C-alpha cells in the first residue's frame, strides 16, 4: 500500500474549498492484488473515493451475440454500493451506471491486446464502495491496474482524471462539492505513453479556450496518477 500526494504549485492561486491548489490532486493510494477469487484486482482510495476492481479472463465466451471471431470483447460493469452515497442508492443498475459502464469499456479497450484472445471475454467489475466526486475516473485508473494484475497483455496503461471549472477558474480533480457547485466537469482518460485520449466528456459551460486548458490540466493530472499505478504494480510484483 502506498500513499502519495501530488504537490500543487500553489502560486498565488485562489484557494479551493478544501485548500488545494488549482492543479493539485487529492491524496491517492492504489493497491494491486487484493482479492482471492478474481484473476486480477486493485483497490484505490482517491480523496474520499473508495473503489475496488476485479478482473476475470480472458475466458471463453458463451454469449454468441457478443463473441468475435478475431478478438476478445470487454464486459464492464460499474456499480455503486447502496451505502456509497449520502442517500442510500437502490441496488442494481440505473441509467447513469449503464452509461459509465459503456464509456469505461471504451476507455480501456485501446490499451488491451484483444486480438490475442479470439472468441473470449474479459470481465471488469468496478465497485464504488464510497463516492466523493470523480468515481468514473477512479474506476478506470483502478481497472487498468487490475487488468495488469490479471496478467492481461496491454499496449499501455490507461489512466483517468477530471478537470473542470469552479468559481470561474479551471482546476484539476473536482471534489464532490466542486462537482456539484461547479460550472463544468471534464473527465479525461489517456494512455500515458502516447498521451492519446481514450475517454473524454464535458458537462457544463466552457469556452473553447477554457476547454483546451481543462484538457491540458487533466492530461497532466493523468501523468501524475500514472506514477502511482506503476508504484502499485511494483509493490506487488517488484521491479
Amino acid at each position, binding site marked *: 500500500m502506498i500513499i502519495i500526494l501530488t504537490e500543487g504549485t500553489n502560486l498565488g492561486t485562489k484557494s479551493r474549498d478544501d485548500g488545494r491548489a488549482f492543479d493539485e490532486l487529492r491524496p491517492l493510494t492504489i493497491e494491486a492484488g487484493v482479492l482471492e477469487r478474481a484473476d486480477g484486482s486493485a483497490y484505490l482510495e482517491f480523496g474520499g473515493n473508495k473503489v475496488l476492481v476485479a478482473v476475470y479472463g480472458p475466458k471463453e465466451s458463451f454469449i454468441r451475440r457478443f463473441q468475435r471471431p478475431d478478438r476478445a470483447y470487454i464486459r464492464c460493469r460499474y456499480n455503486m454500493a447502496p451505502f456509497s452515497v449520502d442517500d442510500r442508492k437502490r441496488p442494481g443498475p440505473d441509467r447513469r451506471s449503464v452509461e459509465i459502464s459503456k*464509456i469505461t469499456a471504451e476507455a480501456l479497450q485501446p490499451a488491451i491486446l484483444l486480438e490475442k484472445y479470439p472468441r473470449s471475454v474479459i470481465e471488469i467489475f468496478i465497485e464504488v464502495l464510497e463516492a466523493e466526486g470523480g468515481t468514473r475516473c477512479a474506476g478506470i485508473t483502478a481497472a487498468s491496474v487490475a487488468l495488469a494484475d490479471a496478467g492481461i497483455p496491454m499496449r499501455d496503461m490507461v489512466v483517468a482524471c477530471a478537470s473542470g471549472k469552479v468559481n470561474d477558474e479551471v482546476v484539476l480533480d473536482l471534489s464532490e462539492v466542486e462537482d456539484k457547485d461547479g460550472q463544468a466537469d471534464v473527465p479525461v482518460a489517456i494512455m500515458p505513453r502516447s498521451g*492519446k485520449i481514450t475517454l473524454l466528456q464535458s458537462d457544463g459551460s466552457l469556452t473553447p479556450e477554457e*476547454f483546451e486548458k481543462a484538457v491540458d490540466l487533466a492530461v497532466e493530472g493523468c501523468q501524475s496518477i500514472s506514477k502511482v499505478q506503476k508504484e502499485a504494480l511494483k509493490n506487488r510484483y517488484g521491479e
Partner: protein
Amino acid sequence: MNIVPEITRKSITDLINNQERADGRSLNDYREISLETDVISKAEGSARVKIGNTQIVVGTKSQLGDPFPDTPKVGVIITNSELLPMAAPEFESGPPDEHSVELSRVVDRCIRESRMVDLEKLCIIEGKKVRMVFIDLHILDYDGNLFDAAVLGAVAALLTTKIPKITLEGSEIVIDAENKESLPIRDKALMCTFAKIGDNMILDPSIDEEEILSARLSIGMTESGKICAMQKGGATPLTKEEIMSAVKLTEEKTKVLMEYLP
C-alpha cells in the same frame, strides 16, 4: 452488431483518406436536413427531423411533479429515447440498451447544461410542485448520426412547446389549459458529431461510416459559442489536436444548423 465486410471497410476508408465520401459529400458536410415542427397535435411540442435518411419524431409533454430534494427551486426535464425495433434490423424490443441510454443522457446533458430552458421559471411552489417536461425521442429510421438529429429535433420541439398557464390562487394551483404559453427559453444549443475513419475526422457519419468508425466525438455548443456537452465514443483514442479542430468546426457548423430551427 453488423459485421462489415473487409472490402467495404477498405473502400470507405480509402475514399476518406482521399478526402472523398461514398455519397459525394466533402468530409465536413452534413447530409440533407429537413425539420418540421408541430407534427403531433396531442404533444405540447413536436418535431420531425431528418438528416439523410435518419428520421426521428420528438414530442414533449409537461405535467406537475415533485422537485428533486436537492434542487427544490427548479423544474425538471426528462429525456427518454427509444431505438425502436422498426428503425433498423439490428434493434431489438425491450428495455433501453446502453446505446439508447447513452443517446438520451447525452441529449439531456446538451439541453440541460446549455441552460437553454430557464428551469427556475418551471417551479410552481418551491420544494413542493414543479413542472416536469418530458422529451420523448422516437427513433423511426436509423441511418447514422442519431446524436445530432436527436438534439436538433429536441431543441425544435422545445422551441415550439406550448404549456398551459399555471397560476397560484392562495394554495390552489390553477392550470389554465385554454391559455398556453411558450417555455422560458434562453440560449439554444445544438450538437455536431464527428467520426474518425482512416486518418481523418468526418462530420455527420452515415450508417455505413458509423459501422467502421474507430472513434466518435459529439460536441454540443450553444448559440453563444460555449461548449455545453461532449462525448467521445469508439474504441480508438484521439489526439488533442483532433479534438480541438473538431471543436473549431463545431463553432462553424452549429451556426449552420441553427438556421433550421423554427
